[in-house]
């Protein structure tokens, strides 16, 4: 009910107000109807005339946003740097003796504020309001910009040293340009630069300018930042004058857009000083100030620059000036990038390298991937998870202490004022209370025992109350790694005692969660739009069918499967009262569908959960038929194939197809509880004696093993006597190995068959396997009969000493036990040698996992990055962000995999069900 109250909700009003002052956001208070350029169709506009004036005001404030339309990239020209700068930096000093920022220093107040209480001298706003302003320094001598040296080299090489024209004869320029534009389009800028060079090389104009006949010399880069013409070093001044001479139209041949990047701008004459807000200093506990790495670096730049100025003015000898110039070049270079080859990185006094601009941006921990492409949020929680089969599948159990920290903003309306006042009355410490009240002007006020009364007094429509999380609120639940969309689903909150997040075990599969200490995250959406979206698109019931293969991923697991298996297969008779108490315990109170008999069967109890007109034909795990007619099981029983998740669960898939997701989740929840209740009623435990084999079977296994050993020995013998012919494409030794491996694998299968035959099928362990709840026949055989051959990369184990695996064997011994065959069972216990073999394969698989995870992670990242902007358009085509068509029809038939049955429309089913 509370949800309806808040049709317009706060969208971070605090930010919005601030943004206005920045000038990035306009809040048309008087004329909200005005269309802001660049906002075509993107503004949210209130469609209804407001009921009361107060609301409309708030609504407009919160709902009109400016949107960035495009971002233009370019190189800053010296002129532009000066124009955008608000301060010229002339001194390396930061603070005066009183600790106040020095004017013209790097912490100049005109560059923004980082101290609380101070105001920015440029824009007049306070800390966190002022985004900072650039400054600049005039460099005493030009400096090469490290990041542009490759471009500078291309331009220098491709143009005449005298007249600055490109080294392509006039008549060929147009044609070359055409060619280069094509290369640029197809292969990118790098190839274009190479191609320019290739053309000039081909024209043989490298030595002589076709325009002014001036002789040319070869220019190379002397790493990291100098240019050499023949033997002579070109000073940045010379480079700059040459670049200045290059006409605009020739620059374009190199792929440069002269509006955004003239080549001479790449030799710096002024350096932009980033605002202090991006390099804030930290005050240590001792009161000492610790400056940011960038400030340190800039300090070096300014200091050397000043010294260079002084020396030039004083007419110092050329060598000293050259040295200082090189030093300045070093500092500017490391300011841009401190990981340049051939340059020692600038270090702190502690020896740790400084993190300068490039290091700030790049890599996973850099600005782009860490702060821009990934965000941090408030209103989230994380803790250990534990199972609770009693809460619904789309619920999440939230500890009360969490619920008292996580809040939901509710807008005060005339009809809920009283309701919300009660929350404030209870305050932050009594659940369910409220933590904050937000005034219409965006000011946030904490509710304490003292401010409670005032807040209640003050409360009126338009205010927002941040109340505690309550049952039924919407939350997004997530477990990392979030590999698919089912890793983040929308759950309803259920506030519970305890300190863990609780989830129904049926949703373990989509999250890939278990309870061995896993932690999960909870997010509380704060706006009405996000809540609506979470509910409609992310709810657990909307995610039952995996979009990967079109089959259900949520289903019964473990006890729920074995319980229902027992119920429908083994319990043929139970007193009616017991059936009723069973149904009551799972929350079913409608018994009219239970046959009115003294004794009912398990099938009949189970069938009460099914819809009355449900028909189903299927197969069990053991390929026995199941028939359900009009909601009654007429043949067969339930097991993993019908009830499970992760690619099986065909009964559930059918229910989903016919009755929709909500019904499925309800039925599934009941089935789940029923299974668990049945096991509680009958008892269910796995015992060691479950895997006891009768004497005859034991002997059989021994015979099989002995036979296999004899067979292998025979093979080895015939190999030694040269009687084995090699398979085509293999050596004789390899052939022998393959044959042995085949024999030994056959042995395990034979023993497995014996175990399957002889093991008591009514034990609980066997039931788990038979129902598909846990384990398989192979594991059963490994426990009861023998573990079998340990294979390493598809072969027997050969590693170890020369010619043998362990020193207790003779060199060249090819017998099974010398190469990883384990003839003991897990129950009997492994001999030391056998245990060692087991450890070998164990370690190998551990390594495999450890190596695979990062590899597949990287593959996934690449795929996601390459394909994230593909979407289905309104004309059913699949296009990328630029509108380029990738597919004319998604998947050639336009079907959504998560709405199909295993990727198909089941025509056969439709034919069968149509009369």
């Amino acid at each position: 009910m509370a949800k309806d109250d808040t049709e317009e909700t706060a969208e971070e009003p605090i930010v919005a107000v601030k943004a206005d002052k920045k000038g990035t956001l306009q809040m048309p208070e008087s004329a909200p109807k005005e269309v802001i350029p660049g906002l075509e169709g993107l503004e949210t506009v209130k469609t209804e005339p407001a009921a009361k004036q107060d609301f409309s005001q708030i609504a407009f404030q919160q709902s009109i946003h400016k949107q960035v339309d495009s971002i233009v990239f370019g190189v800053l020209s010296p002129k532009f740097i000066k124009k955008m700068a608000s301060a010229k930096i002339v001194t390396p000093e930061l603070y005066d003796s009183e600790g106040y920022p020095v004017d013209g220093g790097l912490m100049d107040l005109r560059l923004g504020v980082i101290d609380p209480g101070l105001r920015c001298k440029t824009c007049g706003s306070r800390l966190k309001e002022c985004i900072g302003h650039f400054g600049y320094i005039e460099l005493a001598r030009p400096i090469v910009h490290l990041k542009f040296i490759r471009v500078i080299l291309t331009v220098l090489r491709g143009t005449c040293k005298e007249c600055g024209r490109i080294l392509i004869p006039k008549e060929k320029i147009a044609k070359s340009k055409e060619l280069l534009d094509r290369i640029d389009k197809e292969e990118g800028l790098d190839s274009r630069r190479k191609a320019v060079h290739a053309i000039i090389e081909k024209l043989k104009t490298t030595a002589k300018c076709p325009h002014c006949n001036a002789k040319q010399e070869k220019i190379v880069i002397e790493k990291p930042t100098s240019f050499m013409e023949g033997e002579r070093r070109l000073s940045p001044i010379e480079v700059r004058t040459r670049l200045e001479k290059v006409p605009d139209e020739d620059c374009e041949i190199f792929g440069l857009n002269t509006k955004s990047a003239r080549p001479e701008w790449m030799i710096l004459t002024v350096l932009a000083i980033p605002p202090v807000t991006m390099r804030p200093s930290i005050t240590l506990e001792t009161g000492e100030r610790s400056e940011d790495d960038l400030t340190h670096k800039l300090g070096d730049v300014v200091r050397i620059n000043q010294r260079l100025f002084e020396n030039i003015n004083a007419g110092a000898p050329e060598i000293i000036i050259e040295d200082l110039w090189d030093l300045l070049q070093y500092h500017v270079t490391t300011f841009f990038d401190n990981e340049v080859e051939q340059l020692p990185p600038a270090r702190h006094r502690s020896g740790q390298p400084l993190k300068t601009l490039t290091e700030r941006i790049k890599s996973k921990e850099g600005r782009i991937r860490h702060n821009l492409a990934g965000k941090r949020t408030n209103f989230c929680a994380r803790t250990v998870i534990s199972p609770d089969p009693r809460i619904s599948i789309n619920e999440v159990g939230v500890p009360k202490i969490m619920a008292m920290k996580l809040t939901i903003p509710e807008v005060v309306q005339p009809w809920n004022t009283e309701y919300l006042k009660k929350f404030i009355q209870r305050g932050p410490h009594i659940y369910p209370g409220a933590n904050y009240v937000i005034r219409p002007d965006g000011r946030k006020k904490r509710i304490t025992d003292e401010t409670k009364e005032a807040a209640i007094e003050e409360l009126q429509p338009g205010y927002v109350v941040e109340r505690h999380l309550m049952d039924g609120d919407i939350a997004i639940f997530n477990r990392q790694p979030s590999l698919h969309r089912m890793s983040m689903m929308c759950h309803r909150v259920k506030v519970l005692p305890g300190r863990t997040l609780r989830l129904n075990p049926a949703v373990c599969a989509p999250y890939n969660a278990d309870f061995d200490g896993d932690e999960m995250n909870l997010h509380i959406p704060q706006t009405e739009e996000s809540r609506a979206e979470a509910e409609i698109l992310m709810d657990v019931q909307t995610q039952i069918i995996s979009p990967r293969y079109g089959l259900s991923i949520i289903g019964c697991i473990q006890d729920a499967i074995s319980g229902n298996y027992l119920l429908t297969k083994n319990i043929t008779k139970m007193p009616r009262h017991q059936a009723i108490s069973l149904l009551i315990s799972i929350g079913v109170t409608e018994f009219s569908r239970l046959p009115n008999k003294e004794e009912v069967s398990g099938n009949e109890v189970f069938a009460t959960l099914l819809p009355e007109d449900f028909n189903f034909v299927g197969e069990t795990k053991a390929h026995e038929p199941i028939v359900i007619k009009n909601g009654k099981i007429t043949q067969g029983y339930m097991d993993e194939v019908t009830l499970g998740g992760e690619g099986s669960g065909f009964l559930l898939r059918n229910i989903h197809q016919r009755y929709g997701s909500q019904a499925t989740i309800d039925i599934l929840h009941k089935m789940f509880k029923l299974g668990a209740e049945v096991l509680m009623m009958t008892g269910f435990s796995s015992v060691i004696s479950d895997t006891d084999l009768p004497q005859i079977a034991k002997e059989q296994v021994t015979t099989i093993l002995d036979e296999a050993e004899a067979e292998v020995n025979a093979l080895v013998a015939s190999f030694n006597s040269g009687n084995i012919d090699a398979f085509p494409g293999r050596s004789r030794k390899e052939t022998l190995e393959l044959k042995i491996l085949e024999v030994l694998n056959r042995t395990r299968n034979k023993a497995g068959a014996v175990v399957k035959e002889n093991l008591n099928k009514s034990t609980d362990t066997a039931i788990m396997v038979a129902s598909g709840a846990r384990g398989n026949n192979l594991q059963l055989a490994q426990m009861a009969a023998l573990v079998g051959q340990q294979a390493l990369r598809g072969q027997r184990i050969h590693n170890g000493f020369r010619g043998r695996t362990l020193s207790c064997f003779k060199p060249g011994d090819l017998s099974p036990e010398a190469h990883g065959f384990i003839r003991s069972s897990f129950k009997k216990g492994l001999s030391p040698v056998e245990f060692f073999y087991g450890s070998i394969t164990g370690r190998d698989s551990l390594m495999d996992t450890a190596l695979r995870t990062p590899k597949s992670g990287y593959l996934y990242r690449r795929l996601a990055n390459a394909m994230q902007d593909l979407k289905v358009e309104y004309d059913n085509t699949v296009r990328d962000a630029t509108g380029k068509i990738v597919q004319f029809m998604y998947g050639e038939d336009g079907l959504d995999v998560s709405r199909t049955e295993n990727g198909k429309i089941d025509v056969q089913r439709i034919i069968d069900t149509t009369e």
Partner: protein
Amino acid sequence: MHKELEEYKGKLPDKLLEEIEEKCPAGKLKKVVAKVYEEYEQARVDPGEAVGLVAAESIGEPGTQMTLNTFHFAGVAEMNVTMGLPRIIEILDGRKEISTPMMEIYLKKPYNQGDGIKDVAEAIRQTPAGEFVEEFSINVVDMQIDVRLNKERMKTAGLTTAIVTKQLEKGLRDANVKVKDDDIILKLKSKDVKGLNELYALREKAKGVYVKGIKGITQVLPVKRKGEFIIITAGSNLEKVLELDFVDTERTTTNDINEILNVLGVEAARTSILNEIDKVTEAQGLNIDHRHIMLVADTMCASGCVKGITRYGVVSEKSSVLARASFETPIKHIVDAALVGEVDYLNSVVENVMLNQYVPIGTGLPGLVTRQIKKKE
């Protein structure tokens, strides 16, 4: 096609119509088609659906379950092929050189019946000269190598001394090849032969010169499959194999996608990507819907050639600077963008995430435009 079905042509995919026609008794055809159409319409994708991301998830998520470095051992007598995750990576990278190229050569009748299949296979295999040489004897006096050929083996392979000589001439640029009686004499061209070492080196080189077969095919293996004999090869050369007259050109394939691209074109390359990924997922027992793989293959091939899912391939094609920068080598992309004066129009996903704006996908796609009702003052 049936009259009732005719009506739905163009509305339902042909595959579905065919299936209905095949399975459905004529009596209820009309009803069935109507019902299928209804279900089909309900199962259509919604406009705005982020199908690309779903496809990436569907392939990336089971990637963690795939095994690393497993070699395929189907049956005893088949060859090793890279499978599992490394193979998937290889395919999606769009690599030019794959680690285990392999061909399946189908043969025309009567060759596929098994008679003389070994000889047919051997004819394809690239064989070095060393296999046909009885003895390399080093003549220290004249500083030359006398090569005595094995006539018998040459005969079975259909080789003559002339062919071997020609191939050796081609393969050994720095030596003179002469025929003397039935032997071949190799002599170094350069005058100042420093010692025996150079002769030894020449001998080793001569051993490795290929005299017969198709370039690149290092191993052949005739295998019986579904009642006919086919040849499986290690190494691949589709172009040359298709030229052979006993090869069934329609069914013969290779696992080298780049080769298929060069010989048969993009459409074939796309199908090949699909098949190769399918092979891996099937071998690993993973269930990935065909549509996801299709979309990946289509993204790789949309530009007309096979582009890998790497920073040099598909990702470099993106129009947005920020999207490219958020993937790999951000500095390079930003610097290049500055030089060209690129404009980022923010029409894909990550840029908008960076700017805290709505993403033009899914529910962020539609814009709502309303005319505001003027307030009555």
